[in-house]
């Protein structure tokens, strides 16, 4: 067995009022993928930040190749060969791939000027390691690449710095199924080259696909350490401290499903074609498909953001044609956007203000801001209480809350509007396991109260576990429909169009 590249021993770290890590030991060897799992707040990011020199441990040692190291700045760790790939890429969209790869360490030629030819050549050499190399031109600006390809550039950047340890922090958060598979192959390539990989993820499927060893953190302590790949249940149990059985809410019973809330017949626009869709009261309909299949376009059409140009839509039996989100909201549709931070929240406003955002938008312009039918703060506090939002106070800025609690505040925002149809886009993206379960149960409760729910998700197990019925989209059309209990391969086949050949 090879010697570890990185050994962290007895690491402890406290922040004012919080003990983030206590006596955590962790190591990773060359050519292995060490999965680091745990809920948000379990201490994963703190551990990584200590490794990369952003934070300093209160106690404990970090050894690299057996020698104790003290990183005081991220640049120190980078120079020693540790690269961290964060969820939000540190790439410059306006600069070329080559310029990004060599950012801050451009090769110099004559007169100390940048040697662009060498930069381009070395960029090509590094990119050649990856399957995506054919899609990337070193002179292309990074902003013109899709998210998955940008991630390849980010990883290539790490490789080109000669990184011996690469940390990936939830690398698949923004990727679709096919792109995930490509990422996995990239990870395999790195592993074969002897790079040590620390892979942080919530998704069991990725861990079982990639990990050689698994370390589970819970509340700043090591909850479990597996030297072989354990069954997923064991990991989840260690992570949440309870069984997974009640993770998803039970599906709707026949009695719970009522009349159609939403019907769409033969609708389409420039992105969508021939959409026929029913969502019944009490029902959660899952929308699966690959990125660009039209799922978000469908949501935006229903929500009036990019409306249907033809076809018929009825809401509670009455024909409707929403041309703006405002009309759609007034008609009884709510939408929880996929990118919470940029589309859903006003980060610098309080939890309560975020909850009131929509209802205030529908209050009379000259009404009293604090109290009227639409803007009753007491009622909002009640809703926030019912969501069990964990916040020091509802006056706290919402950006300080965890992803799950932020999502609940957005749900509360819509509940105050009493919507007939709620559209969730990627409802649990970047949310930890326990909070995920909370969101699933919340969705089920909303459905039981008679709302129809349309859930768009790129996380297949989630669609399968949480939805009563699954629609699969492909190329702007609804390609297939499955009842509760469909399997991942069935859905993937439909999403990639292979069923048409089979049928």
């Amino acid at each position, binding site marked *: 067995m090879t010697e570890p590249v990185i050994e962290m021993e007895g690491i402890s770290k406290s922040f004012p009022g919080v003990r983030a890590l206590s006596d955590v030991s962790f190591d990773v060897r060359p050519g292995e993928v060490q999965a680091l799992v745990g809920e948000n707040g379990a201490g994963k990011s703190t551990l990584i930040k200590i490794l990369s020199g952003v934070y300093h441990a209160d106690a404990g040692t970090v050894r690299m190749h057996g020698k104790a190291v003290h990183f005081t700045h991220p640049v120190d760790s980078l120079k020693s060969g540790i690269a961290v790939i964060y969820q939000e890429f540190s790439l410059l969209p306006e600069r070329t791939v080559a310029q990004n790869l060599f*950012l*801050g*360490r451009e090769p110099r030629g004559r007169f100390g000027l940048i040697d662009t030819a060498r930069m381009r050549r070395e960029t090509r050499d590094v990119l050649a390691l990856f399957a995506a190399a054919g899609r990337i031109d070193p002179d292309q600006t990074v902003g013109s690449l899709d998210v998955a390809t940008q991630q390849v550039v980010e990883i290539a950047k790490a490789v080109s710095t000669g990184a011996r340890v690469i940390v990936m922090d939830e690398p698949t958060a923004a990727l679709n199924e096919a792109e995930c598979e490509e990422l996995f192959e990239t990870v395999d390539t790195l592993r074969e080259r002897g790079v040590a990989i620390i892979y942080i993820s919530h998704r069991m499927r990725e861990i079982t696909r990639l990990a050689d060893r698994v370390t589970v953190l819970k509340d700043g302590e090591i909850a479990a350490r597996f030297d072989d790949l354990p069954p997923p249940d064991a990991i989840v149990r260690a992570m949440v401290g309870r069984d997974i059985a009640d993770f998803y809410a039970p599906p709707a019973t026949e009695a719970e499903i009522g009349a159609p809330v939403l019907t769409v017949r033969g609708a389409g626009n420039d992105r969508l074609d021939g959409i026929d869709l029913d969502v019944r009261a009490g029902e959660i309909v899952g929308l699966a498909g690959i990125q660009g299949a039209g799922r978000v376009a469908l949501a935006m059409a229903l929500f009036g953001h990019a409306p249907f140009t033809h076809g018929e839509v009825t809401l509670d039996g009455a024909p409707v044609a929403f041309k703006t989100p405002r009309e759609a909201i007034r008609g009884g549709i709510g939408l929880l956007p996929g990118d919470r931070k940029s589309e859903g929240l006003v980060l610098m406003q309080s939890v309560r203000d975020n909850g009131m955002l929509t209802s205030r938008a529908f209050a009379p312009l000259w009404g009293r801001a604090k109290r009227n039918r639409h803007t009753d703060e007491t009622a909002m506090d009640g809703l926030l209480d019912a969501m069990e939002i964990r916040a020091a106070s509802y006056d706290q800025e919402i950006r300080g809350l965890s992803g799950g609690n932020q999502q609940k505040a957005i749900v509360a925002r819509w509940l105050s509007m009493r919507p007939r149809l709620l559209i969730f886009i990627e409802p649990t993206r970047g949310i930890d396991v326990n909070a995920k379960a909370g969101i699933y149960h919340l969705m089920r409760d909303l459905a039981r109260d008679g709302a129809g729910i349309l859930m768009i998700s790129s996380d297949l197990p989630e669609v399968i576990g949480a939805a009563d019925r699954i629609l699969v989209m492909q190329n702007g059309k609804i390609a297939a429909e499955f009842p509760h209990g469909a399997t991942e391969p069935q859905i993937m086949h439909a999403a990639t169009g292979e069923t048409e050949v089979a049928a």
Partner: protein
Amino acid sequence: MVIAVATNQTQYLSLENLIAILGRSIALGITAIGQTFVILVASIDLSVASLISATSVLASVIMDGAPAMIVPAVLACLLLGAFVGVLNGLIVSALKVNPLIATLGMSLIIQGCLSAFVSNFAGSVPEAFQIFAYGQIGGVPVALVFLVLLALLAWGILRFTKFGSDIYAAGGNDEAARFAGIKTGRIVVLTHVICSVCAAIAGLYLASRLRSGAPWIGADGVYDLESIAVVVIGGTVLAGGRGGIWGTMAGMLIFSLIDSAFNIAGVDSFAKQVLRGIIIVAAVAFYAIRSKRIVA
């Protein structure tokens, strides 16, 4: 030109007229080159107009007609520029004051100090120094040659040096640049020094052209807002990280062409202002729409 020919008003196509227009463009061009640097790092400089006034007065007072004092005067102006640039840069990067406010404050401070000493033309510029504004090399004004060389130098720095690459990085994503080991604070200070030194050079040029310095020439020329306008028309993004010198030069050309066209046509200057306003807004709207198309 077209207007002049079309309306048969060729008498306005005098050399003096053209020189006047060019003179205004050169000071604007020099200032805008500096402004491009600070805007590329997502900062901005509103103090250039006051600094132009201050350096023009400083140059003309130190020279006071004596050719021997040219070199000390030029050095003093460049030093003043560098000093103001360092201050601006430190206030923005170390004290984290919004650059709009930091340089607005600096502008008021400079203008206030200046007004305490002089209220009109002060000192005089020896003939030897007037070559900067009036001299010619093979029929081409010295100042124009200087502007072109300065633009080439700026382009070279941005395109071929690590410093240039660091400017785009710091402006594009400060955090990412810092994580790549770039000392972004230093980059911000340096770009401010470049900007202020450029403004100081513009002040020297105007002193040479007016044969004396005056405390109002910077404000009179609206060099602060116009240099920003020219940079933005040239496609450099106020948020930083994207743009370049040639866009700025094109923006400057557009402005001076409008000037000359209107001067020749003899239309009142209100219409000129309106047209400039339209061009600024239209240019930015065009860039915004185009960049959205690329994303979609």
